[in-house]
């Protein structure tokens, strides 16, 4: 078999796959390609290719919305963070996601959906004009393919460490598979595969926490084992150790988590990052568009069960300690980053192991498909059509979408090879991506909720917020002592700096937008219809049964979220 040709000697890998495992992985690849070929005939128009015909149900849009974010690096990275920091890592799934997802569904989605925009930069064009769209589209397109390449390289590295697969083989086979099925079937194919991948991720990853809890003696048994293995350290409380920077291993204060992560970063990502918002724009009607993020939030709340719990179980049951990457390389031990595959190998025999690895590959592919389909849309509609060729036929733009899907993947592959040569690029690009999210949230939020915001205010707020974020990052790079000013404490660590930098850049964006708006002439209200609160008639849900209303379901999800905070306080 082709795959076995590329597999390296057993001594250099963490897991050995048998023939049944390789069969499972091969069948998965065949299925995603088959779906792409099957859906090709349904992707003939621009609406079909870029917005999946706007006919997705709330469930499909919601699962796809979540799946596009649920990459394998996310699974492995947060399992590693759970081993390192304990249950604190759950903040990125709960306070760092749920309020923002519910806010997107209930407050922001009506404006995105009613305006009939095809993208987030497209909304900025309608609300603030061409310059704001160009700024956000170019930065988004550029950063999306770069991030995609970095994720591709990181995934290939994981496959090399875990399975011994050749790094070039992993990069080319997985990325070309994604390129083929997205180029053929467009967003519909990406969404279909994301739903499939969502199911596989759960089917493959759920075994670990179930068997792990049996081995550890349930939740209480696990907590007792962790306390015995790591005396004096608290790995199992969410909030009680966040009163000061020194009391928790993340070196972060609760204000950083609530305001930086829970407010700016989370709301910025979940409400304005087109990678995820695009899935909801494909919903069949406004109710489905509002329900999709609510459904996504309900499932997001459960993801710690398959991501955080394996990390905690690693603390409880593994007979050897895991360590940082550098220490692991020096001592020949295992790093935190390997905790998920180590737990997979601990409980899963032939067949289940193949399913678990398929879940990791599925996670990678869903994340990458999200990146390239969003890139294709923003490039075609917000850059190519807006700035280069305004009046071409619809078929021309569909062809452009197909080609730039392939181009996006090739640029991502090129980035992956660049990162392989110059690894420090990874830190810079990840920092760059964070520069745009927080200010963009400020611009979109004011655009939707404040009709006095003017086109000049929107543009200058976005630009100044972004430049302010870059300046703060450069300041700390040049003078590490500056972290005391950015993150309000000399004890703050990198994570805290990111949180506070996001908060300040959001405030800069909002402040500049408000100031410039008061100095410039607002748009007439007639031009804001369908775009801004107070100028848009949102269809009433009064004739709908209570249990079918998105606001009611969001209330239930919000209540469960609060109860979980109290239980794990």
């Amino acid at each position, binding site marked *: 078999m082709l795959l076995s040709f590329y597999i390296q000697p057993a001594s250099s890998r963490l897991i050995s796959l048998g023939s*049944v495992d390789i*069969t*499972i992985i091969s*069948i*998965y690849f065949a*299925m995603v390609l088959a*779906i792409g070929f*099957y*859906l090709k005939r*349904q992707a003939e128009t621009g609406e079909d290719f870029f917005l999946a*015909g706007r*006919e*997705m*149900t709330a*469930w*499909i*849009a919601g699962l796809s919305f979540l799946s596009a974010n649920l990459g394998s690096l996310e699974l492995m990275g947060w399992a590693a963070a759970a081993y390192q920091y304990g249950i604190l890592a759950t903040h990125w799934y709960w306070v760092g996601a749920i309020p923002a997802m519910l806010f997107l569904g209930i407050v922001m989605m009506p404006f995105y959906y009613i305006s009939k925009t095809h993208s987030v930069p497209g909304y900025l064009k309608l609300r603030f004009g061409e310059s704001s769209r160009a700024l956000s589209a170019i930065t988004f397109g550029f950063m999306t393919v770069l991030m995609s390449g970095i994720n591709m390289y990181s995934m290939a590295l994981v496959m090399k460490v875990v399975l011994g697969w050749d790094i070039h083989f992993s990069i080319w086979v997985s990325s070309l598979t994604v390129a083929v099925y997205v180029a053929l079937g467009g967003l*519909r194919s990406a*969404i*279909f595969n994301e*739903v*499939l991948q969502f*199911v*596989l991720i759960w*089917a493959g990853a759920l*075994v670990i926490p*179930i*068997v792990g809890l*049996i*081995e550890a003696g349930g939740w209480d048994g696990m907590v007792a084992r962790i306390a015995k293995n790591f005396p004096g350290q608290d790995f199992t409380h969410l909030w009680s150790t966040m009163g000061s920077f020194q009391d928790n291993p993340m070196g972060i204060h609760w204000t950083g988590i609530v305001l930086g992560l829970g407010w700016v970063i989370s709301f910025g990502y979940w409400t304005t990052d087109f990678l995820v918002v695009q899935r909801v724009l494909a919903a*069949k009607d406004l109710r489905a568009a509002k329900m999709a993020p609510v459904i996504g939030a309900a499932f997001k709340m459960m993801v710690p069960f398959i991501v955080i719990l394996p990390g905690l179980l690693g603390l409880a049951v593994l007979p050897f300690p895991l360590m940082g990457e550098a220490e692991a390389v020096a001592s020949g031990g295992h790093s935190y980053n390997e905790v998920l595959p180590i737990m997979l*190998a*601990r*409980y*899963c*025999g*032939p*067949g*289940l192991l*193949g*399913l678990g690895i*398929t879940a990791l590959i599925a996670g990678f592919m869903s994340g990458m498909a999200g990146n390239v389909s969003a890139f294709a849309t923003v490039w075609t509609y917000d850059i190519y059509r807006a700035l280069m060729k305004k009046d071409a036929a619809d078929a021309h733009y569909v062809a452009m979408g197909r080609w730039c899907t392939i181009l996006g993947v090739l640029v991502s592959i090129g980035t992956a090879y660049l990162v392989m040569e110059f690894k420090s690029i990874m830190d810079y690009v990840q920092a760059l991506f964070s520069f745009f999210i927080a200010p963009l949230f400020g611009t979109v939020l004011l655009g939707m909720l404040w009709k006095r915001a003017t086109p000049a205010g929107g543009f200058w707020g976005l630009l100044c917020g972004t430049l302010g974020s870059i300046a703060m990052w450069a300041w700390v790079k040049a003078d590490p002592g500056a972290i005391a000013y950015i993150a309000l404490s000399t004890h703050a660590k990198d994570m805290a700096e990111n949180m506070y930098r996001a908060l300040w850049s959001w405030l800069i964006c909002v402040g500049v937008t408000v100031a410039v708006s008061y100095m410039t002439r607002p748009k007439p209200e007639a031009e804001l219809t369908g775009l801004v609160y107070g100028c848009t008639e949102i269809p009433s849900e009064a004739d709908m049964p209570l249990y079918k209303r998105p606001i009611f379901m969001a209330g239930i999800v919000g209540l469960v979220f609060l109860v979980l905070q109290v239980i794990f306080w």
Partner: protein
Amino acid sequence: MTGEHGSISIWFFTGILVLVFGVLILGAGIYSLSNPPEHPVVLHELHIDLWWGAVLTAAGAFYCWKFAPSRKE
């Protein structure tokens, strides 16, 4: 809950894949009963592969039946 017009539901594709994976995992579990592995996984005696394979097979078969193209109006 299909999300497409006049075409095969995504849940049917999902059902096929889950069914096939379930059968393969169940088969591997049955094989390991008669040929115990040299290095068994932790809690091997629970035969998780048999249970999980059976669950996936049942769920996959149900989805294949429920969302079969022939059952569409």
